[in-house]
């Protein structure tokens, strides 16, 4: 039977709403408003997890996102399972199921616990020093290491939840809605700034909202009730947007921040369907006010990690906010006054405190007096030297500190307890500030890093800026905000503040013990089991920088990213090495502040929306006619059109044959089209293509090759002269955007004197290419009034015409070697024209063909495809296209590079045709080509770039690159496959109709 440790109704908990949940298979109850941690503590459960390395029993240690120990798996073996969830963050809901991780068979009895006994031989970095013999065994060792590492389990099925993004542009962003953040939000919003206030918890007011003590008053009200009124007021301000359950993950340069808004994680599973789970806020703020507060520090002593040991502030919060006592016999251990606030609150709630251990000798404040008045035994100048109890703390031993704090003296006193609260003072939460590029300074008197220089328009206020007491916070805030926001009044100028807090603190990073450090386990990083002696070992071995020590000992590398222990690691290094804290530097705090779900970062960019798809105007027709599609860049292109379960090979053979025997039709709309106008258009083309353009007649088309400035082939296509100063250029499908970008670049930056305008018209046109011996007949039916005679409309020319009153342009150009007509019509009429062609072509067996057949047909003609037959290492000379490189032109892009010593060499790889000895054998694209096997390694001469079985030639054909290939015509070469060698002969790359008779047939 578990105990009920609820002490007092809290206004933050709805005790009328009982919530049932399961932990490690057993059902428990909590109340609406509880976190999993508070509900477990109310049921007297402390042991919730095992540590990473030693599998030591661990309990709940904090009440927030800094929790290192109490991490659990939610809903295991379901699609909504989630590993490594902090029990201190998750709000309970009906049906919540949580289980302990990293333990087997159970958290109570964990076989891995044996590591704790092996720990003497497992010091920091032990794995660098062993597992090396025998050499081949590392992977066997590693198998077990991997199995025992890791914490929770990855989901194994896709995520049923959905995520979303939202861009927010605001004037002022305030991070953190503690007392400072709430005040700042009110001031900013009331002064007309578009303001956004973000809070990671589900309530506003931070730690002050439950501060209910006569020691802390504002304008004669308790600080909590004063703040409550302020909160009610800001909720009504129109230009203030408040986001709770929202955690700022990253603070990037230029005030760009990412925050995760949690929308459904607190709801029962069945209420989540169809709702957005989390939203990633992408925030651009003109000004940022960081009010992220501070985290209480633990104290570092032997066995400071047992279940039942919590931060003192967490014990206070569990009592004051959740109405839960963490134990029945409590002890507090502190080096500053804040533990006495916990003591006062616990006392008020009737929770017993056995003793307070204070490592300071001389102390005096109203708070301390109150504890004394309440007859709490205070051990002044003492420290804890050890704790006892395996799965729950049951007693501590304390000793007196020497005057200098370096060692312990006197005799041990044992004190029984079931809960220990520790307080080592406070560390400002400067994570986001440093992420943004802010630089810190070290404040010696209380040993904290605080913001020093700001890299952008931002400010830190409250305890994240090192103002820890209410009076400090309130007196600084008004001044800071006036200056930062450029305003005259905040309305907070004359607050009356009453506080009782002695700022004295005795900071000892590693508390002395009666044992040598090597015999202790004083945890610095609780999750990763990094101890003070590990840090000492690292220093002993020559690791000096904090980054080295961190990496060698894994301190700060856990899921909590060292929020609790990093300062102590630094402090211990400083104490041991004798260097000053301020000079050691800090480790870099890397984003995100708290771990960020991948799904949230991705938002809706999954599945259908992973990447844009582009469709041609005839896309629906292709779908209806069962085309298979190929991804080409972002385009969906018809690949081939299988008929009645045809294989791809059969479909392509059929399509290819039809295109040469009668007629084929291709959707070529994806080719890039650029409208080029201006009085210097011809000159411009002269500069960007390798061949000459000035003399191209109006109405004619010409093929052009474009190089990069390094001389390598970049793109190709046909350009048509529409008018004296007007051309239309086509580019490859994949190259369209980059070609236009490159041309604009030259035009704007190198040749601004040219009068040329470029406009993309790719999407304006549907492009329908009809080819084959019957193409002329088909086009004459589709466009009856167009004179298609070869005299009027020869190859490489165009005509403007109309199809039923709709203007269009027909080009007679060919990528297949067949007579072809390419109709370019406004896109919204494209499907209709396509259907008209299909209808007219029916009697000629017009056959739609896709990209695969197009590739085959052009390969028969030896035409290259940029990107398939080229790979950015081929010059036009390598392609044996010398004919297209103008010798007369003074310059064009890439020309100079063709004349470098290595680009002029004769033994470069050149494009050739390849014929297999066995005409039925089809080469594999990508296969390598060799001449002989005598050398080792085998010298590779080149590779096969394109290969097909040609139904028209009834043999296999291929294109490829061969070193010195242009002089090897007829020579025999070998294609070495894994299990055979294929004999090939170097051939002319033009396999079919070298005389181009078919173009006019």
């Amino acid at each position, binding site marked *: 039977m578990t105990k009920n440790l609820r002490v007092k109704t809290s206004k933050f908990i709805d005790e009328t709403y009982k919530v049932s949940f399961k932990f490690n298979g057993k059902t428990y109850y909590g109340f609406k408003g509880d976190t999993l941690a508070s509900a477990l503590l109310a049921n007297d459960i402390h042991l919730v997890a095992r540590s990473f390395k030693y599998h030591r029993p661990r309990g709940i240690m904090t009440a927030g996102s800094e929790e290192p120990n109490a991490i659990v798996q939610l809903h295991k073996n379901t699609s909504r399972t989630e590993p490594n969830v902090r029990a201190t963050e998750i709000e309970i809901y009906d049906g919540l199921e949580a289980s302990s991780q990293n333990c087997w068979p159970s958290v109570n009895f964990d076989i891995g616990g044996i590591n704790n006994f092996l720990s003497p031989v497992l*010091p920091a970095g032990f794995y660098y020093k062993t597992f090396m013999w025998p050499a081949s065994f590392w992977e066997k060792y590693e198998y077990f290491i*991997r199995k025992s590492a890791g914490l929770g389990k990855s989901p194994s099925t896709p995520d049923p*939840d959905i995520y979303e993004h939202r861009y927010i542009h605001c004037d002022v962003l305030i991070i953190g809605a503690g007392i400072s953040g709430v005040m700042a939000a009110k001031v900013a919003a009331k002064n007309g700034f578009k303001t956004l206030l973000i809070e990671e918890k589900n309530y506003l007011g931070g730690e002050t909202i439950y501060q209910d003590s006569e020691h802390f008053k504002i304008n004669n009200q308790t600080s909590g009730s004063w703040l409550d009124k302020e909160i009610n007021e800001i909720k009504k301000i129109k230009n203030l947007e408040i986001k709770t359950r929202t955690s700022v993950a990253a603070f990037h340069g230029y005030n760009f921040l990412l925050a995760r808004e949690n929308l459904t994680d607190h709801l029962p599973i069945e209420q989540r369907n169809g709702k957005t789970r989390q939203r990633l806020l992408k925030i651009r703020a003109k000004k940022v006010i960081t009010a992220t507060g501070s985290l209480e520090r633990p104290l570092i002593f032997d066995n400071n990690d047992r279940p039942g040991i919590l931060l003192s502030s967490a014990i206070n919060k569990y009592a004051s906010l959740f109405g839960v006592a963490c134990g029945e016999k409590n002890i507090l251990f502190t080096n500053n006054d804040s533990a006495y606030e916990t003591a006062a609150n616990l006392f008020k709630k009737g929770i017993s405190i056995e003793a307070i251990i204070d490592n300071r000798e001389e102390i005096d404040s109203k708070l301390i007096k109150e504890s004394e008045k309440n007859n709490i035994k205070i051990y002044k100048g003492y420290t804890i030297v050890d704790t006892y109890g395996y799965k729950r703390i049951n007693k501590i031993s304390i000793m007196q500190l020497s005057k200098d704090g370096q060692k312990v003296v006197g005799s041990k006193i044992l004190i029984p307890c079931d809960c220990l609260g520790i307080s080592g003072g406070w560390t400002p939460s400067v994570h986001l500030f440093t992420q943004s590029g802010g630089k810190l300074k070290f404040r010696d008197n209380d040993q904290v890093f605080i913001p020093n220089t700001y890299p952008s328009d931002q400010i830190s206020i409250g305890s994240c800026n090192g103002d820890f007491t209410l009076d400090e916070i309130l007196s600084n805030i008004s001044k800071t905000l006036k200056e930062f926001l450029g305003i005259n009044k905040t309305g907070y100028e004359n607050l009356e503040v009453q506080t009782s807090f002695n700022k004295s603190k005795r900071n000892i990073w590693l508390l002395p013990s009666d044992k040598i450090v090597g015999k202790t386990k004083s945890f610095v990083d609780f999750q990763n089991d990094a101890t003070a002696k590990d840090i000492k070992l690292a220093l002993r071995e020559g690791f000096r920088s904090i980054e080295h020590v961190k990496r060698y000992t894994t301190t700060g590398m856990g899921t909590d990213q060292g929020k609790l222990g990093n300062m102590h690691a630094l402090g211990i290094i400083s104490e041991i090495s004798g260097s000053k804290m301020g000079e050691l530097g800090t480790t870099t705090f890397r984003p995100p502040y708290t771990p960020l*779900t991948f799904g949230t970062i*991705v938002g809706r960019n999954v599945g259908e929306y992973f990447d844009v798809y582009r469709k041609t105007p005839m896309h629906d027709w292709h779908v209806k006619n069962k085309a298979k599609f190929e991804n080409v860049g972002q385009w969906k292109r018809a690949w081939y059109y299988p008929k009645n379960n045809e294989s791809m090979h059969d479909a392509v053979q059929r399509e290819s044959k039809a295109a040469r025997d009668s007629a084929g039709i291709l959707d070529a709309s994806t080719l890039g089209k650029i409208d080029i106008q201006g009085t210097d258009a011809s000159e411009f083309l002269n500069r960007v293509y390798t061949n000459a353009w000035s003399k191209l007649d109006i109405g004619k088309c010409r093929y052009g090759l474009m190089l990069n400035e390094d001389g390598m082939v970049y793109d190709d296509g046909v350009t048509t002269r529409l008018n004296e100063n007007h051309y239309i250029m086509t580019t490859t499908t994949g190259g369209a955007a980059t070609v236009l970008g490159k041309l604009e670049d030259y035009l704007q930056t190198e040749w601004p004197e040219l009068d040329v305008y470029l406009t993309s018209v790719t999407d304006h046109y549907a492009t329908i290419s009809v080819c084959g011996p019957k193409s002329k007949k088909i086009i004459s039916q589709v466009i009856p009034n167009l004179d298609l005679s070869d005299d009027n409309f020869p190859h490489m020319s165009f005509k403007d015409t109309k199809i039923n009153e709709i203007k269009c342009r027909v080009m007679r150009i060919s990528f297949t070697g067949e007579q072809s007509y390419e109709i370019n019509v406004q896109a919204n009429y494209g499907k209709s024209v396509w259907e008209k062609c299909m209808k007219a072509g029916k009697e000629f067996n017009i056959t739609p063909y896709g990209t695969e057949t197009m590739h085959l047909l052009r390969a028969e003609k030896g035409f290259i495809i940029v990107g398939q037959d080229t790979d950015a290492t081929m010059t036009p000379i390598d392609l044996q296209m010398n004919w297209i490189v103008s010798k007369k032109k003074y310059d064009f892009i890439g020309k100079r590079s063709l004349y470098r010593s*290595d680009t002029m060499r004769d033994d470069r790889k050149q494009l050739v045709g390849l014929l297999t000895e066995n005409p039925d054998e089809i080469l594999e694209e990508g296969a390598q080509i060799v001449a002989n096997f005598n050398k080792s390694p085998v010298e590779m001469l080149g590779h096969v770039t394109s290969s097909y079985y040609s139904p028209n030639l009834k043999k296999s054909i291929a294109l490829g690159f061969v070193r010195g290939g242009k002089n090897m015509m007829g020579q025999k070469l070998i294609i070495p496959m894994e299990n055979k060698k294929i004999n090939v002969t170097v051939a002319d790359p033009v396999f079919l109709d070298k005389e181009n008779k078919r173009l006019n047939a």
Partner: protein
Amino acid sequence: MKNKYSIFSLVKNAFSYHENWEKAWKDPEPKKEYEAIIIGGGGHGLATAYYLAKKHNIKNIAVVEKGWIGGGNTGRNTTIIRSNYLWDASAGLYDHALKIWEGLSQELNYNVMFSQRGVMNLAHNLQDVRDLKRRTHANRLNGIDAVYLNTEEVKKFCPIINTSPDIRYPVLGGTLQKRAGTARHDAVAWGYARGADEMGVDIIQNCEVKGIKRNGNNLEGIETTKGFIKTKKVGVVAAGHSSVIANMAGLRLPLESKPLQALVSEPVKPVIDTVVMSNAVHAYVSQSDKGELVIGAGTDDYVSYSQKGSHDIVEGTLNAILELYPIFSRMRMLRQWGGIVDICPDASPIISKTSIKGLYFNCGWGTGGFKATPGSGDLFAHTIANDEPHKLNAAFNLNRFVSGDLVDEHGAAAVAH
């Protein structure tokens, strides 16, 4: 002679509560003069010093490091090691490195955790298939253990990949190099440092180079924050900062230094037991021994030394990760960071002499230098010691940018037709 690391030394030291371990490397002040100085205490620089001392009998060597050793790209990369490169020159270089990796832990007596869990490269479009097949054929003929896998074989080797044909960029196939894998990045730097230190190399940290002193074409020494140090040979292995050092010597390099980002998830129990890379949708992932998913993102397109990149790059990478591994949607990013990578126009490195006698550069590794660390150090040491490149790095000279004989490893440049 340093104490040998082993399970026995661990047990022995346990009895003295690990209070008697000696320093892995000393912390010397610079001498007045060295026979050779290596600028840059990353993996490549430390390996260079190690092999200079070990194989070329140069003992009076210093490694000067601006920050702490291994703190640059060595400690920031995603630790992928493979040698399945297309061109002969690259395959030779990277496989040389891979062979050293295979015995490196024993050689250094430092467990670098080289784990040959295989590297798979995925194809997502027809051109990817051609390119990967081309590479696999070339690898096979170069004696590199790469094989081509069809979609089912990809799925079998890594079952968590979404190989559905209905996704936006379906997996059409892939290649696998089984000898490839990952290693522990810090250990590589520390292992080489310990080894070099043992042979008398001075590893000088927190020592920033401020100038290169030369008399005409002859090198005289380097100016540092710890004073002038005389030397006749300087090997620069400064990665992202190579151009900064080159500018000091009055040289210009064909480099641009750009942000490259990576991230890890929270640690989970083993879920992916290999390395999977995908160029077309740009994502690569493996799982560290600690259990974190290690995910590499791409580079930004601008020069930056800020060690920060843009969020769009990280977001784009995770988009791709969830496209291929939808089960990771609820996993969480624990940490992200950036490095500065020096990129050559042909995506291949430079291990070369320069126009200044005695000044050598090892740079331009771009996004993939970690895998080459031991080979790069070995070949650079050879180049420095002999004032001549080894045949394995001869192609990676600076002159290739003048003559046009580039080693273009961008892979397929464009998607066209």
